[in-house]
């Protein structure tokens, strides 16, 4: 461990040892203990300094300045050439703490106002984004050769096909849980067989589409945002723009269209596994045979339930894909911005999925569907 010292001896300050970053805290303490005589001038001697780096030089300058405030003259003596050069350089470049303005934090009212304004602006930007996408969509419709089938089908594959196992498993388990909870109540009244109606309606109308959409928002919405965000940071998006290919045509619309097709398909898949899960539980807990279950399912659960459930899926797909893409394109060139926007994309997508679902419920009840 290197050591360094400074002490007062015969009107001279003697410096010794390695004046480096490592010995800085120790030196700071030693300096604080020194009380200089008030009248005479002081010499500071650097003969036995073995090594000095800029941190050491900075400390020396700082304390020489401090001592000089008491109108003392301080003379440097016997410092090596290199050290003198370093001290001069540091002296020239020192910045006192007060010289740069501190970062100002506005008060709560200003912050509230700024947040509100930012949110409003973001909403306007979102509308702008949707408008732009619509125009691009119409332009491409008029020119079908520009449709990117590759990107579209790879989107369907990534967001749909590859999600099949996880969606299937989760829906099966949701079916099991629902059948169990409802079965416990129904058994009290000896109304075991009504599990079929309850389960069929709730899975097909609500749980199938909703659970699938929430899963996909977490899985696909986040990946849209992260992918586009990295492309934005690497300026790949700018590169596309300069080559006369709009990002909407190559990246955004195929993604959105892909999810628009994939989410209803996934919802059917989720419906099947949800009902299967419920059927499995009904068979185990309520002694309803497979045949009995399917027979009653066919008679009691109307086709309308399936269609209403499936009808929501495209709307959810548009919500997820447009928010995911919008947040991705809104990434600024800092690393944490990708994280923030990915979080926002998932949270906002799930929020609006649930809002849309509530709106659907109200509309359908008014229409007596």
């Amino acid at each position, binding site marked *: 461990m290197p050591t360094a010292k400074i002490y007062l001896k015969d009107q001279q300050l003697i410096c010794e040892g390695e004046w480096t970053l490592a010995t800085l805290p120790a030196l700071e303490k030693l300096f604080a203990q020194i009380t200089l005589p008030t009248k005479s001038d002081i010499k500071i001697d650097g003969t036995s300094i073995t090594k000095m780096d800029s*941190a050491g030089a900075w400390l020396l300058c700082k304390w020489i300045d401090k001592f000089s405030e008491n109108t003392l003259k301080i003379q440097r003596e016997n410092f090596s050439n290199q050290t003198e050069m*370093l001290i001069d350089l540091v002296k020239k470049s020192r910045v006192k703490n007060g010289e740069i303005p501190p970062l100002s934090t506005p008060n709560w009212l200003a912050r509230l106002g700024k947040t509100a304004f930012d949110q409003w602006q973001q909403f306007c930007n979102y509308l702008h984004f949707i408008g732009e996408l619509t125009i691009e969509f119409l332009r491409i419709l008029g020119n079908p050769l520009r449709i990117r089938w590759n990107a579209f089908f790879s989107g369907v594959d990534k967001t749909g096909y590859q999600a099949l196992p996880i969606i299937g498993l989760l829906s099966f388990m949701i079916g099991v849980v629902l059948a169990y909870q409802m079965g416990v109540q129904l058994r009290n009244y000896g109304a075991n067989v009504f599990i079929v109606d309850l389960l069929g309606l709730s899975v097909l109308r609500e749980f199938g589409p909703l659970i699938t959409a929430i899963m996909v928002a977490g899985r696909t919405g986040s990946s849209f945002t992260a992918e586009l965000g990295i492309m934005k940071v690497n300026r790949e998006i700018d590169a596309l723009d300069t080559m006369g290919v709009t990002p909407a045509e190559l990246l955004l619309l195929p993604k959105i269209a892909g999810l628009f097709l994939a989410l209803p398909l996934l919802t059917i898949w989720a419906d099947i596994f949800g009902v299967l899960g419920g059927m499995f539980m009904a068979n185990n807990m309520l002694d309803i045979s497979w045949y009995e279950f399917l027979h009653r399912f066919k008679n009691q659960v109307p086709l309308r339930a399936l269609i209403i459930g499936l009808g929501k899926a495209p709307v959810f797909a548009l919500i997820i894909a447009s928010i995911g893409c919008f947040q991705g394109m809104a990434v600024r060139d800092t*690393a944490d911005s990708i994280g923030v926007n990915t979080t926002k994309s998932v949270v906002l997508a799930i929020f609006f999925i649930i809002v849309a679902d509530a709106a659907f419920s109200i509309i359908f009840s008014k229409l007596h569907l």
Partner: protein
Amino acid sequence: MTTQAIIQITHLKTYLGDAWVHNEINLTVERGEIFVIIGGSGAGKTVLLNEMISLLPPTSGSIRIFEHELTKASPKTLLDIQRRWGVLFQQNALFSSLTVLENVSFPLKEHTPLDADTIRELALLKIVLAGLQPTVANKYPAELSGGMQKRAALARAIVLDPELMFLDEPTAGLDPNKVLAFDELIMDLQTTMGLTIVMVTHDIDSLKRVADRVAFLGEGKVLCVDTPEKVMQNPHPLIQEFFKGSRDS
């Protein structure tokens, strides 16, 4: 200034992506010099630099830095070595979510027991030494121009007062008069802070200005190590081809 080896590379071989990048590299960098590594594209300059800063293990051979064998160093020894060097990356690698001042203070906060005021003042000192106005301290890297980002990254690299500095293409992407200023800055720092500098570059003008010794990489080997003038006179076809462009212009 005593001459002693600060980096010693012997029999270094690297196999990367189905090809031998380095066949047999032997190099010695001495204390206090500016050592420049050049070579054509794909000669493995940046790979060699990455091996020296222990981001990439070599396939075989030995790299000794400050008398420690880098390839076999324990994490603790490695940390000690890392505190004695500074690295300036080609893309600056400033933390984009921190201000310049926070970027420069970061190594001090991590590695020293100093109090906040001292850290702040030391960091500001390094920002000014790197040739920036203290007023940029509270800006984010994205708000600075390319040249200023380079200087901010340099300030971060020298904040722990390293003995050894690695610079990867420090002047790439800067306009010519900025290159001149940056070269002068590096030479100033080198003399006053007693740095040893290892630098990878493409810029022949800057090479002539700053280098004490130059190593030319090619064919997986070090083709030549000498002063810039002597390397330029070397008759090897690869070396002649490399310098031809600059002489024509």
